[in-house]
């Protein structure tokens, strides 16, 4: 399923702001899906919470009279689920739009809020390296990609990538191929 994919070759119908007419996105990289485990767990708890809170709340009485009417409890429950959907949506978008792209011309790094965009031409790329850190990184094969450049921004780093060795290899091969084609 491409929507959950963290390494896409030749992504379909994908463009970025500032893309040239003759430019084509060859790789699109996202953080590993596993990094979302924290907020997914929280979302699961949030979804279950009304099942435990609503019944005692609806039974709350004072001097024989119900304290909160059923209509308001329904509104409260609905609000809670809308809030949970908002929480899931916001966190998913933060993961989805935090990308590193390699086109036939440039390397582009877009951060999670899509407000910071850094790019450099492939001719500026000097070195591509990867690093797997920690026990969980080794077990789950998650690591970081570093792209050294000769431009003003010295290094593009993209953290928590799945299969970082393979990704590093693919990017390095592509950069070498395009540099050779362009004679640089």
């Amino acid at each position, binding site marked *: 399923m491409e929507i959950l994919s963290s390494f896409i070759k030749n992504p379909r119908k994908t*463009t970025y702001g500032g893309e040239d007419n003759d430019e084509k996105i060859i790789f699109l990289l996202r953080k590993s899906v596993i990094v979302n485990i924290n907020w997914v767990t929280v979302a699961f708890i949030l979804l279950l919470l009304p099942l435990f809170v609503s019944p005692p709340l609806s039974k709350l009485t*004072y001097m024989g009279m119900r304290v909160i009417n059923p209509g308001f409890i329904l*509104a*409260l429950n609905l609000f809670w689920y*809308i809030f949970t959907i908002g929480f899931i949506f916001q966190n998913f*978008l933060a993961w989805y*739009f935090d990308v590193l792209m390699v086109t036939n011309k440039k390397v582009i790094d877009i951060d999670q809020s*899509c407000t910071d965009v850094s790019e450099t031409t492939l001719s500026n790329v000097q070195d591509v390296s990867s690093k797997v850190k920690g026990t969980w990184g080794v077990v789950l094969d998650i690591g970081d990609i570093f792209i050294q450049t000769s431009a003003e921004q010295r290094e593009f780093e993209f953290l928590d990538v799945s299969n970082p060795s393979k990704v590093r290899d693919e990017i390095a091969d592509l950069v070498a191929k395009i540099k050779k084609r362009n004679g640089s």
Partner: protein
Amino acid sequence: MVPNLPIRQLVIAGKIIVILIMVLYAVFAFILTKRVKLMNANLTTPQSKLFERIARIHMVLSIFVIILATINL
């Protein structure tokens, strides 16, 4: 002896606070629609229209729930 608390007033005050929180959340939902539009402008994907639709429905529902809560005040 049961204390004579102004329970009705306290409950209404509590409900008003909840509705105010819902209003604040609706403002956040509106801002989220704008953010999604900006994100899609910076990076257009096959799911762009779906994200905008979800953001819009989310905002409409957050307004609806305010109306529902106000009716049941």
